């Protein structure tokens, strides 16, 4: 590894705590300064104001927000992420990690499927430019890409659960495989994977098609064709590889989204993943859970982006770090 790169990585890693500090403070403060806290919400209309005030006092909600923040971060540094109030009394890690695991499972499959199908499909469409196959395939993909999950999920539910009766309409079930709780092999996983993969494939394929078309116009492709290489070899060796470069960025974003479950998907299909939890936590002002979700999410995002930056350096020597970092 070149010395310049090592310094670059180190500097980026040193920035991580700073980023997390800012992110955590903003999240924390947004929650605390927003009107109404969890004590008030949970107490409901019948509780006495004095009781609510007393509990607030005991739980430190009346302290100045910076004081509360320092106390919270002190706990986080010792590994204590706090206590959930939506699932009243359960430690935050017991609440969020099982949920992240669920979102990760279906997202990982979606990611692999999206790229495994989308890349060849986009390349194929580009190679068929000028024939009817290109506009047809892209047109169909465009429909999938533009149908929001709010529409596609009820349709899929109707088709597979009600009409055909082959899939459960929602929910999530897990069974143990080699000591690991997995939900991927249950029928419950099919609908979310389908609902996310369809627009995902469409997006990647369309992007890939654009990239391939651009590369096809390059001189080296003409040269390759001119020197009599077989069409298949030209595509795999020269076109696809060059078109892949910008795809790495997309891959990065998709990776970072792995544990960030979709609120829509999870609400409509009743999948108890991290997206649904985040939504409920916000509604019930579950401060510690919201902050923990954001903290874990941003850590993974920052690390993935770093990975992608490094990868770029390797793939394309023209993109060199030179100390000029955005």
């Amino acid at each position, binding site marked *: 590894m070149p010395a310049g790169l090592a310094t670059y990585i180190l500097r980026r890693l040193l920035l991580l705590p700073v980023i997390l500090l800012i992110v955590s403070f903003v999240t924390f403060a947004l929650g605390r300064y927003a009107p109404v806290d969890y004590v008030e919400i949970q107490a409901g209309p019948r509780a006495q104001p004095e009781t609510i005030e007393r509990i607030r006092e005991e739980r430190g909600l009346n302290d100045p927000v910076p004081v509360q923040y320092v106390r919270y971060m002190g706990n986080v540094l010792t590994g204590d992420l706090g206590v959930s109030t939506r699932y009243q009394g359960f430690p935050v890690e017991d609440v969020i*990690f099982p949920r992240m*695991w669920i979102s990760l499972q279906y997202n990982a499959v979606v990611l692999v499927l999206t790229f495994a199908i989308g890349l060849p499909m986009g390349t194929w469409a580009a190679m068929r430019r000028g024939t009817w196959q290109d506009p047809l395939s892209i047109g169909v993909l465009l429909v999938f890409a533009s149908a929001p999950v709010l529409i596609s999920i009820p349709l899929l539910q109707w088709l597979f659960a009600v009409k055909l009766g082959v899939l459960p309409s929602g929910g999530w079930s897990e069974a143990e495989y080699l000591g690991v709780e997995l939900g991927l092999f249950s029928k419950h996983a099919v609908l979310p994977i389908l609902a996310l993969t369809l627009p995902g494939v469409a997006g990647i394929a369309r992007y890939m098609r654009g990239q391939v078309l651009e590369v096809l116009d390059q001189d080296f492709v003409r040269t390759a064709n001119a020197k009599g290489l077989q069409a298949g070899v030209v595509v795999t060796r020269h076109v696809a590889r060059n078109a892949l470069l910008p795809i790495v960025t997309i891959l990065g974003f998709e990776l970072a989204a792995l544990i960030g479950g979709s609120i829509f998907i999870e609400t409509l299909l009743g999948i108890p993943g991290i997206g649904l939890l985040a939504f409920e936590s916000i509604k019930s002002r579950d401060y510690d859970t919201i902050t923990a979700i954001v903290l874990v999410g941003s850590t993974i995002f920052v690390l993935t982006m770093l990975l992608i930056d490094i990868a770029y350096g390797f793939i394309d020597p023209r993109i060199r770090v030179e100390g000029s970092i955005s």
Partner: protein
Amino acid sequence: METRRLVLTLTSIFVVLIVLLGGLTVILVAGGGGDDTGDTAGDGNGGGDPSGDANDLGDRIEGELRLFGPDPITLDPACASDAGSAEYIVEIFSGLVSFDLDLKVIPDIAEDWEVSDDGTVYTFNLRGNVLFHDSSRPVSAADFKFSMERALNPATQSTVGEVYLDDLVGAAEFADGDADEVSGIKVIDPRTLELTIAEPSAVFVEKLTYPTAYVVDEREVGDSTCFEGNWTLTPNGTGPFKMEEWDLGRKIVLAANPRFHLTPAPSLARVTYILSGGSSFVMYENDEVDVTGIGINNIETVRDPNGDLNADLREGPSLDVFYIGFNAREAPFDDADLRNALSLSIDREFLAREFLLDLVEPAKGILPPGMDGYNEGLADIPFDPEAARGLLEQAGGAGLLDGATILTSGQGATPSDILQAVIAMWEQELGIAVTIEQEDFGLFLRDIDDGNFEMFSLGWIADYPDPQNFLDIKLHSESLNNESGYTNPAVDALLDQADGEVDEAARLALYQQAEELIVDDMPWAPLYHGKASYLVKPYVDGFVIPPFVIPNLRYVTINR
């Protein structure tokens, strides 16, 4: 660019990613590991079957009832303030008394009780055969003292202790930290508990049916606060069902308590609640659950006499009222004529029959049908635009309502159809334009509590089936829950008198008189009362959705 370099790099990215994902997996699985040990402990208690994790389609267990349930906030009886949590607590835990399906108070852990002549001292004789789920020991009077004091103890941080146990002598002092015990809770002997209340109350025993007064096992709970809930994963209760598995946010599995002390004892082998899974109606059609509620979108399909689902339809009352509240503290809504004008221009019959497709009953007063004290003879609130316009003129004209707003709870989506329909009626009949203002639920509650509104729309569901729970709690001028700020000394006097009245018929008559005065003043425009409409699979017998939370599962049997 060298292609070899590209391939190499992409490969190494994937290797790194797999390692990262693997590491994350290990962390997440290890995180879930804590739960697994908890489950094992739970199985040790309940002797659950080893293949407990198979809940896929077709994997049915004899005598299992499958329900779609609300995701509870807490299963700690001392802390639960919402119906969604109470639904589970009433099956797992129990108290001195409970309700049967006829909404009558029945003895539960108490065998019977006596009330002193002045109506303030209740002596409960406990059954000798009530065991905690782990069969370790019988429930004693001291367990009740511990449990009730725990709910009131400020260290527990419960918001409901004082709401439901405030009648007890010494409760306030103890809750404020000024006393070491609640003097109104006395253990006479292990099977005799004496509760003393400050003033005679017709609803005190009914309040004891609420989870706050339920018994918990001191050896398990210790000094846990409402914010230390791990023990509720394996709750050692006394109710008809015991916890077999609680997977947070996903499912709750209950198993019958074979030693339950009341008849009928539970006949279901187990009850599985699915806590997440999208639409319960679709799940019912898909045979994933045995019961589902029915909403406005599905009711016509179900009512079709030739449809598959028609035979499964059940209907029952629901003890609630949905209304539009007016801010009676401030002009222009402090004028009863103006409030009545608004109310008279609402076509309740149309709303209930045409708009909500008979899923509700139009309201003519505050109290819902099916509740003791419901006044059959109360006149309907007519739809009379003519009279409404006259009253509005008398009050000062439509100009008073320029720019009026109605506050409702919502996330910013389209507000409820019913509210829009009401506003359209006002516009058409009175020529006024009212704006809907939506607020997040928490903020909404705070604003109506603070009187920070002109009008609001809300519902009220019974905590216990007594007029006191509606009229006294919501419309007495001194009640904390009188959001409208309604004040009528004559109403207050009647409500106070009813509170102390021991003769049941006289007491209900007083409430009816108060209700009539209230309807005349119209601090709320009551719109409708809900009905429970739901589907039950033909092989499920004895299942009813009760009009409010009561333990109902021990009456259910499965016959296939």
